[in-house]
């Protein structure tokens, strides 16, 4: 057989049938559900008298609307102040009850952001197809799982048929070779990639991230990278299986049982692109040249290294581009040529499905330890990705590190990533955020988002403006904190 890419293998192993026009029916192994995009899908099933095809393929949790303060959380769903949010969360609970779908409701220790919860439970496994009514489903590709973000009609389609209608994408490989500098993280790699290929660079492609710098990353880091594949226009991001993948999965609740483990691992080891497999496009980056990244504009591709400046629209290579920069600078309240380190912050948000896992919190805590959030920063918050991440962080004493430094320590959820709950930016406020989208109004009406890594966000909170985290002394490794 001809050499295949990882994407080709995953596609072939889930293909139920194909029409002449290329529309194919793909079998779906796992559907993750949350409260915002599922209610109409469940209603659709009811109206048409259909039942879910396979209950055990589904797993649900509430994340987008949930409040993150302990006061509101104590009373469970009933305690959600916003009526519309409460109804959405309650509806997810009711639907899962009615149909018999496994759910981690608001105060379950396993509740959290759907893209943190899936992998954490082992509900995302190599070789699977994974869907969710959310574009950041690309996250799960870090496990060599073919993962698509889908719309509400498709959520219903998958519930009812266990299949998704798809057309095959093209293959792209992003190779990142070499070693990352100290203080430079997965977030910086992916922002640099988006800066390089643009937000539409991956449109129509499944991107496989490869190279020694990717192999050297933890699963958390790989998830951060695949999470933002969608910000490069690609619905699918992938990383091949290696020992790091396998080690992460062992012992998780949904992982294969002891009798099946060996067979599963043997299968998973084949989930790599064959030598000589054809990629329609290849992009190469040298990891050693990547600096900590900061976005200055209103699209993730508007990004620059920490030592850089806000660009001058006059230097733009095209008229459209120039107008785009001008509009972004006006919205962001920045001027051409301004040093990135001169941007002052009003709020800092450490969280979201991009950067709210234990490793992210460790990185941020390492920077925050023994320091204080600048008095000019109105609010710095840390929102763990799940109840289990929160518990682990507390076990390691990270919560104390944050609280002593002046950060708020919150309950798990999407929070200020999209401001569907009470956590929002005010108009004109600048925020160092570890999330994935810096669109106008994303974190609150008129809010100004700068995307950065967790370490860079923590450093910015302490300095009150962006600083090069590499200039901060790193205190001992986080594991030592719990001792």
């Amino acid at each position: 057989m001809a050499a295949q890419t990882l994407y080709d293998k995953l596609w072939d192993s889930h293909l139920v049938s194909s029409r002449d026009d290329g529309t194919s029916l793909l079998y779906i192994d796992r559907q993750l559900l949350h409260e915002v995009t599922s209610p109409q899908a469940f209603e659709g099933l009811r109206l048409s008298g259909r039942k879910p095809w396979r209950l055990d393929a589904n797993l649900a949790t509430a994340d987008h609307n949930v409040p993150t303060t302990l006061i509101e959380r104590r009373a469970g769903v009933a305690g959600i102040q916003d009526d519309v949010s409460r109804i959405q969360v309650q509806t997810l609970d009711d639907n899962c009850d009615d149909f018999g779908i496994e759910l981690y409701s608001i105060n379950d220790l396993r509740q959290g952001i759907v893209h943190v919860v899936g992998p954490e439970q082992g509900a995302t496994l190599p070789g699977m197809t994974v869907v969710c009514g959310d574009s950041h489903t690309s996250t799960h590709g870090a496990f060599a799982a073919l993962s698509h973000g889908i719309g509400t009609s498709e959520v219903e389609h998958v519930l009812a048929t266990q299949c998704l209608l798809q057309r095959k994408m093209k293959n792209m490989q992003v190779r990142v070779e070499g070693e990352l500098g100290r203080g430079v993280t997965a977030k910086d790699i992916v922002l640099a990639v988006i800066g390089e290929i643009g937000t539409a660079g991956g449109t129509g492609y499944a991107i496989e991230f490869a190279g020694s710098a990717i192999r050297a990353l933890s699963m958390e880091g790989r998830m951060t990278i695949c999470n933002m594949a969608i910000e490069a226009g690609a619905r699918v991001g992938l990383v091949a299986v290696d020992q790091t993948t396998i080690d992460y999965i062992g012992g998780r609740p949904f992982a294969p049982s002891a009798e099946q483990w060996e067979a599963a691992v043997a299968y998973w080891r084949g989930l790599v692109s064959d030598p000589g497999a054809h990629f329609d496009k290849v992009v190469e980056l040298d990891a050693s040249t990547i600096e900590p990244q900061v976005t200055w504009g209103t699209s993730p591709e508007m990004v620059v290294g920490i030592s850089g400046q806000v660009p001058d629209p006059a230097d733009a290579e095209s008229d459209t581009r120039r107008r785009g920069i001008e509009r972004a600078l006006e919205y962001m309240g920045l001027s051409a040529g301004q040093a990135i380190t001169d941007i002052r912050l009003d709020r800092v948000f450490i969280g979201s499905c991009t950067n709210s896992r234990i490793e992210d919190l460790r990185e941020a805590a390492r920077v925050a330890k023994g320091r204080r959030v600048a008095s000019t920063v109105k609010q710095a918050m840390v929102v763990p990705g799940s109840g289990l991440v929160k518990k682990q962080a507390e076990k390691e004493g990270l919560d104390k590190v944050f609280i002593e430094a002046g950060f708020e320590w919150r309950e798990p959820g999407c929070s200020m990533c999209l401001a569907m709950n009470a956590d929002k930016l005010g108009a004109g406020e600048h925020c160092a955020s570890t999330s994935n989208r810096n669109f106008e109004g994303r974190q609150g009406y008129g809010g100004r988002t700068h995307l950065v890594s967790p370490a860079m966000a923590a450093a910015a909170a302490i300095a009150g403006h962006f600083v090069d985290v590499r200039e901060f002394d790193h205190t001992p490794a986080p594991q030592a904190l719990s001792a």
Partner: protein
Amino acid sequence: MQKFVRKAGLVAPMDRANVDTDLIIPKQFLKSIKRSGFGPNLFDELRYLDEGFPGQDCSQRPKNPDFVLNQPRYQGASVLLARANFGCGSSREHAPWALEDFGFRVVIAPSFADIFFNNAFKNGLLLITLSDEKVDQLFAELYAQEGYRLDIDLANQVINTPSGESIAFEVDAFRKYCLENGLDDIGITLEQADAIRTFEARHRASQPWLFRG
């Protein structure tokens, strides 16, 4: 999805280009948990004089008397006559849901936005693309005659006007088949239920760890 049934439908005009999905259904209604019930908020900002919010009793709100859908002559309309690039903007499926819930079965325009086009057919709404001239002509006839109805004959792909003219239109064969039989994507996919089951059994045999029950 309901079957498309031939009947002469009362026509209402939406006489402006680039009607976007935000205009069709504003974003505050996306927090709803329903697929139905968007009808009262269709074109909310045009239709009412106050700002709408989810869950409100719309019958108590001040209506904009100038807006076409509030005028007595267009009550009960099921065909919407529109201008170019109808349905542009966000991908929200709430837009076709709102049009259908209000009672529209057909939208006629010189062009439609891509995503809206797909979403509409997925939800049983027939979109007909006609030339600018034909749309102009229909607008003129509609304004001239109260109670103006068009007979949409999907089977023969023609629109019959009150004056006896027949206007042919194109529709993708697969989409036509779905509409005529009331089949949504799910219905079509379920026709392959045996193939899915066969695949599933094979899949389970080779990767049993993917199945918990």
